[in-house]
C-alpha cells in the first residue's frame, strides 16, 4: 500500500537548514540514481560518497550535486595502515565518511531509500525532520507519554518534573522505514511479504539505560557530540559477520550517550525502503550475530564507564578495553574488533586534530 513520493519538487524547502554545517554520507556499490528523487531536498548539501567494492569501477553521480567521493584506494591512501579498521565489501565502510567530514552534522542514507509520503500524501523531507530532531532537546531521564514535548502541538504532561523540562542535547536521530521494514533474516524468511504501512506520527527520546537496535539506513547525528562513537565495526570481506555494523555502533553510541548525558531520538522521519535484500544471503551474514548478540547485549547493558571518561574518545577507548576483556571469550573476532576500535579512534583524532569539546557540550 505504501508508495514512494513522486512530487518532491513541490515539497522542496524554501530554506535549507544547516546547509553549510551538514554532510550527507552515502555508501554505494552500484549507482546513485536514487539521488534524483531526493534532489530537491539534498541538492543544497554537500555529499560524501563512500564507494565500496571494486575501486576501478566509476560511480556516476547525478549532475548538480556538490560531492567528494572516496573509493578503497583513497581510504588506503588517506589512512595508511589504519585503513584496516574500515570494512571492505560492506556498507559499514560508510563510517569513513564520518571521519573525513569537516561538518558538525551527518545524515546517512542507503542508496535504496526513497522519499516517503505522509498520510496526507505529501512528500516527506526526511533531512529536514532529522535536523529538527537534532536541534531540539531530548528527554532521556523521564518518559513523556505524549512523546516529543518539543514538537508543535505537544508538551510535557502533568507530573513531568519542571527541572527536567529543559532536556539535554540530542546526539542522534534515528529514522524509520515504510515498505520494506528492517527485519533480520529469520523474520524475513517467515514473513517475506510483510510491509510496514503504519505511519506512526511520533518522535521520542529513548530513555537512559535502555538499548535499542540502531539502523544505519536513515540516521543523522551531531558529529561534534558523538562522532567518534559511530564506528561501524569490522564487517564484510574477511570477517565472520555482516549486518551488525550499525547495531554495534548503536550500542556503543547509546552507552556513551547515557554516560555523557546526551539524548538519542527515534521515530520520524520515515523514508521509503524499496529493496528487500536476499534473506538467504542475509542469514549467512547475520548467523553468528544472532548467537553473539545474546552475549553482546548483556555486555552493553552492564557496561559502566568510569567518571574520568569525559570525552567520547575516552569513553570509546574504555569500551574497547572492556570488549577485549569480556567479549574475547565469545569469539576471537571481538579481540580484533577491540583493536580496530582503538585504531578507529587514532585515525579519527589524526584526521580531526582539534577534536570535539569534552563532555559532549557543543562549542
Amino acid at each position, binding site marked *: 500500500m505504501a508508495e514512494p513520493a513522486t512530487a518532491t519538487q513541490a515539497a522542496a524547502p524554501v530554506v535549507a537548514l544547516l546547509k553549510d554545517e551538514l554532510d550527507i554520507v552515502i555508501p554505494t556499490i552500484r549507482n546513485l540514481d536514487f539521488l534524483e528523487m531526493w534532489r530537491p531536498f539534498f541538492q543544497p548539501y554537500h555529499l560524501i560518497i563512500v564507494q565500496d567494492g571494486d575501486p576501478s569501477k566509476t560511480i556516476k553521480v547525478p549532475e548538480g550535486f556538490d560531492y567528494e567521493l572516496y573509493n578503497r584506494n583513497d581510504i588506503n591512501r588517506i589512512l595508511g595502515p589504519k585503513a584496516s579498521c574500515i570494512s571492505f565489501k560492506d556498507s559499514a565502510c560508510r563510517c569513513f565518511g564520518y571521519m573525513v567530514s569537516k561538518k558538525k552534522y551527518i545524515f546517512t542514507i542507503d542508496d535504496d531509500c526513497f522519499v516517503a509520503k505522509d498520510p496526507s500524501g505529501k512528500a516527506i523531507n526526511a533531512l529536514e525532520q532529522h535536523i529538527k530532531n537534532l536541534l531540539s532537546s531530548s528527554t532521556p531521564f523521564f518518559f513523556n*507519554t505524549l512523546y516529543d514535548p518539543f514538537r508543535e502541538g505537544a508538551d510535557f504532561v502533568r507530573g513531568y*518534573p519542571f527541572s527536567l523540562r529543559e532536556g539535554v542535547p540530542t546526539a542522534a536521530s534515528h529514522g524509520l522505514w515504510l515498505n520494506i*521494514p528492517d527485519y533480520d533474516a529469520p523474520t524475513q524468511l517467515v514473513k517475506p511479504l510483510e510491509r510496514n504501512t503504519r505511519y506512526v506520527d511520533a518522535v521520542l527520546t529513548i530513555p537512559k*539505560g535502555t538499548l*535499542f537496535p540502531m539502523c544505519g539506513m536513515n540516521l543523522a547525528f551531531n558529529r561534534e557530540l558523538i562522532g567518534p562513537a559511530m564506528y561501524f565495526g569490522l564487517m564484510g570481506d574477511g570477517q565472520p559477520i555482516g549486518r551488525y555494523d550499525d*547495531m554495534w555502533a548503536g550500542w556503543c553510541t547509546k552507552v556513551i550517550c547515557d554516560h555523557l548525558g546526551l539524548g538519542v531520538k527515534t521515530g520520524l522521519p520515515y523514508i521509503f525502503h524499496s529493496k528487500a535484500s536476499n534473506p538467504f544471503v542475509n542469514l549467512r551474514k547475520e548467523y553468528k550475530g*544472532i548467537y553473539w548478540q545474546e552475549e553482546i547485549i548483556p555486555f552493553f547493558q552492564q557496561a559502566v564507564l568510569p567518571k574520568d571518561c569525559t570525552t567520547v574518545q575516552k569513553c570509546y577507548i574504555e569500551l574497547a578495553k572492556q570488549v577485549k576483556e569480556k567479549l574475547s571469550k565469545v569469539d576471537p573476532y571481538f579481540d580484533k574488533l577491540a583493536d580496530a576500535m582503538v585504531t578507529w579512534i587514532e585515525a579519527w583524532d589524526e584526521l580531526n586534530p582539534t577534536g570535539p569539546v569534552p563532555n559532549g557540550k557543543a562549542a
Partner: protein
Amino acid sequence: RTLRAGKLTERVLKLFIATGKDEVFSLIQALNIQVTVTPVLPTRALRPDLTSFMNEWRTIFSRFHLIIVKDPDLKEELKIPEGFNLDVYKKPDIDRVVGTSTSTIFSGYSCRYFGYLVSRKKYIISVDDDCYPVKDNKGILVDAVAQHITNLTTPATPFFFNTLYDPFTEGADFVRGYPFSLRSGVQCALSCGLWLNLADYDAPTQALKPEERNSRYVDAVLTVPARTLMPISGINIAFNREVIGPALLPSLRLGGEGKFRWETMEDIWSGMCVKVVCDHLGLGVKTGMPYVWRNDRGDAIASLRKEWEGVKLMEEVVPFFQSVRLSREATTTEDCVAEVANVVKEQLGSKDPMFARAAKAMVDWVKLWKSVGSSTSSPGA
C-alpha cells in the same frame, strides 16, 4: 466488521456462536471476547449527570460489567441511563465496606480505587467521566476497551527497545538486532492510554497554552522500558487486577487537592509505585493507544491561584522513585507495596508530613486489600 461498527453485543455474539462456523469461533477466541472474563469499568462520577457520557460509550461499554463509584463528597443524586449491567457505590456503601473513618480516602478522583477494591474481575478499565470515544485516522470508532484488553493480553517488551514499537501488533515485528531470547516478552500488567483534545497537562502548562488541543493521533502502542519512569495518568488506564491490583492505591493527597485533574497528584504517585513494582516483578507497562476524547473543563488559571504543591512535589518524588530498589524477598505485589511504603517513610517522611501520611496510607491500603479486596462484597440497595 460487526465489532468495528460497534455493534457486537452479547446477543449478536450468541447468534454468531450459534452458526457453529469454525472461523467465527477462532475469531472470537482471537479477539478474546469471552463472557466469563469481562472487564470492569469503575467510572468515577464527579458530576451527577452521567447520561451523555454513558450513552456515548454505550456500544463499547454495554457488554461489560460496570462499577460506578460516586465521589462521597458529591451531594446530588446520580443520573444514570438504562440498559447497562452495573453496580453503583455511594457513600453509604463505601462506609459499610470499609468503615466511616477509612472512607475518606476515597474522596474526589480517588473514589475510583474503591471500584478497584471491590471488583472481582481479572481486568479493570478505568476512564474519567469527561472522556468520550474517538475515531481513529480512518474514521472508525475506537473501541478503547478492546485496545486496552489487547494491550494487556499480549506480551510487553521492557528489556530492549523495539524501534517499530509493539512487535505483537499486526503488520509489525521485532526489528533486526533484537535479541531472540527477549522476543517472548513478559506479561503486561498495565496499559496507559492517551487523550485527544484536552491532553493531561498540568495547570501551568494549560494556563500558558489555553488554546492548545492535542490533535495528533499516534498509531502506536509501546512498552515503557524497565527502570524508566513516567507520569501515569489515571484518566484512561487499564490493568490486570489479579497481578497488580494492590499497587494502584490512593495514598498521596495534596493539601489543596481539588476536583480537577490538574489539582491532583494521586494518580501520578500511584503510577510511580506501580511502575517500580512492575519493574521489580518483571511485569510490563504499555503506553500509547487507545485514545479517548477528553472534554474541556474548568479554568486552569484559577487552579494556579491555589498554591501549586504538585509541581514542587514532583521534584522530590521523581528522584526518590528512581532510586528505590526493592529486596529479593519482595515477590508479591503486596510485599512490594509494603516495602515501598517503608522506604517512603524513611526517606521522604521527614521532608514533608504529606509523605509520612502517604506511607501510612499505603500500608493501610495493603491491609484493606487483603481483607476487602479478596472477599466478596455487594453494593447496598
